[in-house]
């Protein structure tokens, strides 16, 4: 036990002085998530504001042919400006991407309207250009609205109720709560926590195995009157502590960052208060042992620092796989899933963020199964450390 503590303390001090380890554990891991998150949230807010609130500029050829339509568009926050000289020029500039959308109102538009024959308007856009397509869709909707307004007016003029045009009235009822809507986007958070956790211990796992071997400090260490199990356990415990600290920092940085994100504009109110932060920490804590032993195990097999880095980057991504599969299939939490580490933590966290009751049986299975896998991996690490091949 004393050996274990000695090794533990030395590894903590040693790695605490290493800038790279420190940066990845205390900065990179915890900040990467919130930053990426803020970026995504801002992007989706920008996108969701597109339709009515943002004013857009629309190039129109032949404004004078449809003054009422122009007025209608302006009232819908679409600024009408003069377009290219003619149709050919419009097509050319839309094709090249200089202009997103051009509306062409032919001279006969007014006559056709007066005669109540379908009046033709051309909307020139590039459907392959997704950015332009948003504007085109908005213009298309506006034109559709104007068309319906005209139709209604014509019916009224003929003494027919405009409701005959609407045989069916679809009413969309959305039962998702603001917390529930948050879960879709915030479901990613759980991966960021796991990522930060693994990042926190990654360099320790490398340094205490492949790094120690490459430096030549492993052989003298093994010639000391201590058992290899104690050395290994001390190293894994140090890795665990770095991982736990990194996890805690990541949770706190999310807690702070969410306060500054305009999530209400997206109709989300994530349930991520101090209680949830603490609960999330304890739900994820068992994953620390698993992460530390898994990374140490993988790094033990590698021959050099560089090789270990390559392999451990793959380990960083591995926990996303079950989360990804379940997200794509949109599966609900089930008891079976709780046996799968990373997935079980993800599902429990999502429930917490959605402010839904968390199934305690699920939590128990998640904690125990994750700890069991972690313990098994630690045991394998210790076995591996007894091998001669360790020295490479």
């Amino acid at each position, binding site marked *: 036990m*004393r050996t274990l503590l000695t090794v533990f303390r030395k590894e903590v001090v040693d790695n605490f002085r*290493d800038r790279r380890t420190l940066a990845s554990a205390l900065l990179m891991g915890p900040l990467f998530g919130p930053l990426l998150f803020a970026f995504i949230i801002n992007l989706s807010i920008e996108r969701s504001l597109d339709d009515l609130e943002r004013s857009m500029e629309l190039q129109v050829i032949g404004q004078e042919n449809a003054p009422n339509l122009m007025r209608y568009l302006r009232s819908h926050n679409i600024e009408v400006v003069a377009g290219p000289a003619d149709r050919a020029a419009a097509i050319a500039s839309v094709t090249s991407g200089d202009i997103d959308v051009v509306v062409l109102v032919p001279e006969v538009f007014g006559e056709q309207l007066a005669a109540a024959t379908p009046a033709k308007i051309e909307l020139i856009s590039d459907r392959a250009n997704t950015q332009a397509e948003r504007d085109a869709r908005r213009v298309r909707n506006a034109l559709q609205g104007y068309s319906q307004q005209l139709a209604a007016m014509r019916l009224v003029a003929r003494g027919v109720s405009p409701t005959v045009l609407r045989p069916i009235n679809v009413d969309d009822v959305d039962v998702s709560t603001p917390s529930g809507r948050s879960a879709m986007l915030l479901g990613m958070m759980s991966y960021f926590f796991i990522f930060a956790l693994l990042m926190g211990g990654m360099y320790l796992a490398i340094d205490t195995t492949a790094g120690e071997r490459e*430096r*030549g400090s492993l052989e003298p*260490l093994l010639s000391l*009157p201590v*058992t290899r199990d104690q050395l290994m356990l001390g190293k894994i415990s140090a890795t665990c502590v770095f991982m736990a600290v990194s996890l805690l920092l990541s949770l706190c940085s999310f807690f702070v960052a969410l306060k500054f994100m305009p999530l209400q504009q997206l109709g989300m109110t994530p349930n991520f208060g101090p209680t949830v932060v603490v609960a999330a920490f304890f739900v994820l804590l068992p994953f620390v042992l698993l992460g530390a032993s898994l990374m140490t195990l993988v790094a033990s097999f590698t021959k050099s620092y560089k090789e270990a880095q390559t392999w451990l980057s793959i380990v960083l991504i591995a926990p996303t796989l079950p989360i990804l599969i379940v997200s794509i299939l949109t599966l609900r939490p089930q008891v079976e899933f709780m046996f799968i580490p990373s997935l079980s933590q993800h599902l429990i966290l999502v429930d917490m963020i959605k402010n839904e009751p968390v199934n305690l049986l699920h939590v128990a299975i998640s904690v125990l199964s994750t700890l069991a896998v972690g313990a098994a991996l630690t045991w394998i690490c210790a076995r591996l450390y007894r091998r001669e091949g360790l*020295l490479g």
Partner: protein
Amino acid sequence: MIVVNDIHKSFGKVRAVRGVSFDAPDGKITGLLGPNGAGKSTTLRVLYTVLQPDEGGATIDGNDVVTNSLEARQCIGALPHGAGLYPHLTARENIAYYARLCGLDKNDIEERVAGIVELLDIGDFANRRCKGFSQGQRTKVSLARALVHNPQNIILDEPSNGLDVMATRSLRELILKLKDAGRCVLFSSHVMQEVAALCDDIVIIANGKVAIEDSADGIRERTDCDDLEDAFVRAIDMVGDD
């Protein structure tokens, strides 16, 4: 006291050591001499228990290196070839870490570390972090680290590699001091002169076998060469390549 009894060790198809036996008694300096790849390091690695022999065995103060490896390790201080330090720890911390792992009493550690720092004359850089140390400084700190728990048996694998004249000299003095204190010193080298100047007993290894084991004079006599270097070459030829 180190007793080596017919050690065999292969790595895959490479038969690194094929039956090495010798004794390294207390109060004497034993030199393991041989060309590159002769099996010196492998033999020493078996002795400080990071490798297990395929056949044969060895004892350190009566402790078998395979069955009683923990006790055997307790009796040795080892300086492996190219031993590395922890770059983010100071020299003193590197030494103290080993002292703690060797189970020294908390109160004694500071005193022991101070003593070994003085003995090896490394006070000038003892409080500096080891990153950027010269080869000589590194070797001295590694040596201090190996000796901090006052081991009876000292195993040094090519300790003079990369050292300048001054450093080699002080290393030699240290080894003689250890001998006078009644320790068993076993070190390997491929430099004839160094071994001849220092050792009471010389074990010449070639192709994984002991070519000859004797004092410097004994070797000169038995190989019928006045020059030790010639004697070395002849002794190696005696083993053959089979």
